[in-house]
Every structure is written in C-alpha cells, then in structure tokens.
C-alpha cells in the first residue's frame, strides 16, 4: 500500500513537474521575428534608423509582458544593402531560426528580393519602410507593407500642387533609383488629370554629386514648383543649387523628408515643403507618440521621423496580429494581419491592408517654419493631408 501510495505521489509529482516545465518553457520561449535590414552599405542610414525605432518598441512590448505571455524577440541581420545577402539572411532565419515572420528591409531592392522568398515559402513578410509598388502587386499572399507606395506619393504631390496653384508648371529632378522613378511616375500620371504640366524632367545617375547645369536648365523652363529627389547628400546639393539660382523655398516640394535630410537642407530651406507619414511637429501625435519622441530624442539626440515610426509601429502591428491569431502559427498570423483594422499608436492614423497587402494610403505635406542645424531641430506646420485607396491610380502598371 505504502509503495503504491508512493508511486502515485511520484507520478503526480512528475505530472506537476512536467506541466510546470511546459509552462515555463513556453514562457521563456520567445516568438522570433527575422529582421533583415540595412546596417551597412549605402542604405545603412535608413536601416539603422529603422532598427532604432523597432528596438524602442521591442523593449516596451517585452517590458509590458510580451505577447501571449512570451517575449517578442527580433533577430536583426544586416543585409549589407545587398539583395543577395537579404535573401540569404531570409533563408537562414526561416530554416534555422524558424521565425514567425520576416520584416526589416527599408530599401525596395532588398525588400523585393525577400518578397520572392517569402511568397515562395509561405512565410509572412511585413515590410516596414520600402515603397516600390510591386511589393504588393496583385496576387500577393504573404507580404504586407506599412509604408504607402511611392507612385501614390507622386499622385499626392500632384493633388497638393493642384490645390496650391491650379494649372501650375512642375519640374522634376531625381536620382535614378526605383523609389524616385516610382514617385516621378505618379506625378507624371496625375499631372494632366490635375491640369498641371511638367515643364522639365531631369534624371541623375546614381552617385551624382552636382546639379549646377541641370538647375539652370530647370530655371530656364520657368516652373512654378520643383520636385527634387536626390539620393543622400545629393538632395541637399540640388536644394541649395535651386535656391542659389533664385528659386524661393516655397517653390520646392521634397516628396519625403526625414530628420537627417531635413536638417541637411539647411536653414535657408525654411519655407519649403516636404512629404512625411509622421512628424514630431504634428498636432495629431498621441501621448504614446510623444513618449516615443521623447525617448528617441533622449537616446539619439534628434527627433524620430517616419522611418523610425514605421519600424516602431511594425513591432506593435506584429504584437496585435499575434494576439488576434492567438498563436504563433504562420498561416493564422497571416490571416490575422489581413483582417487587422487598427491605428498607429503614435498618431492614430488607421492601419488596414487590402487584398494584396497594401495599406490604405495617406501622406502629410509639411512646411518648414524654422530650423536649428546645430541642435538638429526643426519646426514645421501641416500644409496638406491626403488619404487614398492604394489603387486610386494604376500603381502596378506605371512602374514594373
């Protein structure tokens, strides 16, 4: 009897220990996200900013108990701004680390390379910042994108100019990158529909550093507005050469602006416009957004911009989709993302995806009102806001 009793007790203890062990194991077992981004190479300014925003969210989410009582762990891998490296990293994270999903790229070229892998291997892929339209082309099943597509930005620029000056003449100057070509395609498509004309279009090869001659050619075409889109420091060169030639700042509309490049334009650019999806100067920033800005500024000595915000928001979108799926299963997570209807915690802008994974689109145009280059601070006010459906113009046909 005593022996039998002892056996029962031991068996009971074993069951309890096993159960406890399983529970602990689950609690300690993180949900892994493969975060493949640009930490070195020409796009590293963007990837590093993205990682910084994501890390703030990761710390907050895990500090508040994680997801489904498990930590959310971002495995960050550098893709060296190289599509081949991006795919190699995606494969390794999929097969070795068994991540729930992929995320992280901020360059369209790298995101497109990972898109192929994700779609083929049925691996959810949430792109935080990459705007080339084909990332959510019709038939896309596993890829979702937080950033509005770049052809749509071009559409929005034309709508903004139409509202500012009906019948205006617009000049385009841009570096020959996929992102810039997409923006220009949107402007050119929408311009006649908005009764605008394109007075000059100048394309610079990658690595350009001077626009003196082209700025004078644009001057000769006598446009009302100029849309300059230089890559990296070249953006500052174009902006300053236009100002040297007598263009007024409020004739210059930068399709996008993030903190470092806005500061790079310099104080003389005060009065010019830039497009953005999040800005510390917006009235619509929520208390959570204010906290994010404060924490980011304390850590990196500059306010965050839309890149950091999209990557911060990406972590929260992942959290919410996992909670809705109730499990870390890839297919269920994908379905939860597809059905998600939520808002950005930092700005209350709605987040929902269409059947191809494209987000309902929006953009702010801000006007620079002041700048302190030394302190890396600027002031801007909202000049225009627009929301639109992803396929308001044929975005997937305009650029391939």
């Amino acid at each position: 009897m005593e022996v039998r009793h002892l056996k029962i007790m031991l068996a009971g203890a074993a069951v309890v220990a096993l159960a406890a062990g399983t529970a602990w194991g689950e609690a300690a077992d993180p949900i892994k996200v493969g975060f493949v981004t640009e930490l070195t190479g020409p796009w590293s300014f963007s990837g590093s900013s993205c990682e910084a925003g994501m890390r703030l969210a990761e710390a907050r989410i895990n500090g508040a108990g994680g997801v489904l009582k498990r930590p959310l762990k971002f495995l960050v891998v550098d893709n060296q701004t190289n599509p081949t490296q991006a795919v190699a990293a995606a494969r390794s994270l999929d097969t070795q680390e068994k991540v729930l999903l992929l995320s992280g790229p901020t360059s369209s070229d790298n995101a497109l390379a990972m898109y192929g892998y994700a779609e083929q291997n049925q691996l959810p892929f949430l792109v935080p910042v990459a705007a080339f339209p084909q990332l959510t082309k019709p038939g896309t099943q596993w890829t979702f994108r937080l950033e509005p597509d770049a052809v749509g930005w071009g559409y929005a620029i034309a709508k903004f100019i139409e509202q500012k000056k009906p019948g205006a003449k617009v000049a385009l100057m841009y570096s020959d990158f996929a992102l810039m070509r997409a923006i220009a395609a949107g402007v050119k498509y929408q311009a006649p529909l908005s009764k605008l004309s394109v007075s000059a279009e100048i394309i610079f090869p990658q690595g350009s550093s001077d626009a003196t001659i082209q700025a004078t050619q644009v001057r000769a075409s006598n446009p009302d507005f100029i849309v300059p889109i230089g890559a990296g420091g070249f953006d500052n060169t174009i902006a300053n050469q236009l100002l040297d030639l007598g263009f007024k700042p409020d004739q210059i509309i930068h399709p996008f602006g993030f903190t470092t490049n806005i500061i790079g334009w310099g104080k003389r650019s005060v009065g010019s416009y830039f497009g953005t999806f999040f800005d510390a100067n917006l009235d619509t920033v929520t208390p959570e957004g204010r906290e994010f800005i404060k924490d980011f500024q304390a850590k990196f000595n500059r306010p965050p911009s839309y890149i950091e915000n999209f990557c911060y928001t990406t972590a929260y979108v992942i959290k919410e989709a996992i909670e809705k799926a109730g499990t870390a299963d890839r297919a269920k997570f994908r379905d939860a993302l597809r059905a998600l209807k939520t808002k950005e915690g930092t700005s209350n802008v709605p987040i929902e995806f269409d059947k191809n994974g494209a987000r309902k689109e929006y953009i702010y145009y801000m006007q620079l009102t002041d700048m302190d280059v030394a302190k890396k601070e600027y002031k801007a006010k909202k000049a225009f806001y627009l929301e639109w459906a992803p396929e308001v113009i044929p975005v997937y046909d305009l650029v391939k």
Partner: protein
Amino acid sequence: MAMDPNLLVGISMVTTGLVLGAIFALTAAGVTIVYGCIWLPNAASGQLFLLAPLVLWSFTIGFGIEPVLAALLVLAAGLPLAYLVERLLIRRFYDVPDRNISYFVITLGITQILSGIFSLTWGRWSDQYNVPPLAAGVTFIGPFPLPTNRILALGCALTLLAALFLALRYHRFGRALRAVFQNREAAALRGVDVRRVYLGSFLLGTSVIFAGGLLYSMAYSFDLSVAWSMGIAAFAIMIVGGPGSVLGALVVGMLFGFVQAVVSVFASPTVATLSYLLAMLLILLLRPSGLFAR
C-alpha cells in the same frame, strides 16, 4: 536681374567643366606621379580620395573643428599614413620584376579593405556628407550665381596644379623624380637616391590625391560611391594623358571635365558620366600610348 536662360546654361557649363576638370586633373596627377616613378598602378586611389573628405566631415561635424584647420589636419595626417603604407607594403616590392602586377593586386586588396571599413563606420551617415563651406555665399559671374566655396576649390586646385608643375620642373627633388621617371638605373648612376625618390613620390602622390578629395568635398556633395567613379576617372585620365605625364593629366583632366559638362547640357547627366570613358576609347584608338607618352 533678368536672366537669359541660354547664357545661364552656358556659364554653368563652363564653370562646371572648369571645377570638375581641375579636380580630375589634380587627382590624376597624384596617381600618375606614383605610377611614373614607382610603376605602381594604385587601384586604391579612389578610396584614398574618399578617405580625405570622410575624415574632414568627421572633424568638422563630429568634433566641431573649424573647416580650414580641419582640412590642414587631414592633409597633415595623410603624410604619416602614406609613410606607413610605403614602409610596410610598397617598398618590399621595389626590386621585384613586373612589380606593377603585384602592386595592382595589393592595392586592389587595400581597396576592398578600405571600402569595408568605410561601409562599417561612416556608412550609416551616408545621407549627411556635407562639409561646412570654407567660404559661404554665392559670387555672381555675370548673371550666374556660383557658390563662393566652389570658386575657392577651383582656385586651390589650379594653384596646386601650378605648384606641382613648377616643382617637378625646377625643384631639385622634382628633377630627381623626373630622372627616375625616365631611367631608374641612369639616375642611380648620376647619384640620385632612387629609394628616397620612390618614398618622396609616394608621399607626394598620396597627398595630392588627398587634396583632390578635400577640394571635391568643398565643391560637391559626395557619398561612398565617389571612390569608384573617381578611381576609374583618374586611371582613365592617366592612360589617355600618358602614364607618368603630369602635363597629360592636366590637359586630359580638364578635357574630361569639359566633355562631361558639355554632354550634360546636350544629352543627359547619365550619358555625361559615360562620356569621358567613350572619349578615352576614341583617343586611345588614335593614340594607343596616350597623348603625352614619355
């Protein structure tokens, strides 16, 4: 002031050709001095060209050093760096037959190492490389506003080129260097310390390439890709001008700068970046040993 569009474009073409040509010429002169003397085809010249503005940018933006002082510090720092490279690597091959191939492979390796270092270190700020101007504002050339800083860069480049030309022609070291250019053995028999001249030419050539990089960053914005484009341009100028010919580097550098500016006006910036390479092929078809071959 009313501005005639054609006049504006014309002046912008001339000034662009001048500034770009002078910087091309200066950088190619640095490359050709080293090649002519040591027989070292420096594949890392583009990376050295880029190193100077990157360090200048860090000194001015990162440490807040005044731009003129920072530029002088960068030039001064280039000398011990070049000395170290010559001591550790270059001089080991002085007596190796066909050392130009060894040098080319070594400098290719240096190129890869430096580009990896740049990518890992400065890469994350690649959207912010704008060096504060040494001279702010614009200067009007007729109706055309040209940044004063760019005029200063042009002035410095032309002064350096003139000084280089005069030094090679009239200074004792310059004469010794030209003697080694022409015949190493004969120069040695006439009492020239050939190894010393090798060291001097490497220091001089590297400093001139550094100066080219500094002036480029005064005139233009830049990114990491400028190392490749300038490295190729400097080689092309050296080959067309005649390897070892500083006069060739000067003439062809200016020619390439103007070709790029003119093509930029009448075709597009993309065609312009290829134009000087096409010009190189054409000239070499007519004069395979270069325009100023020794």
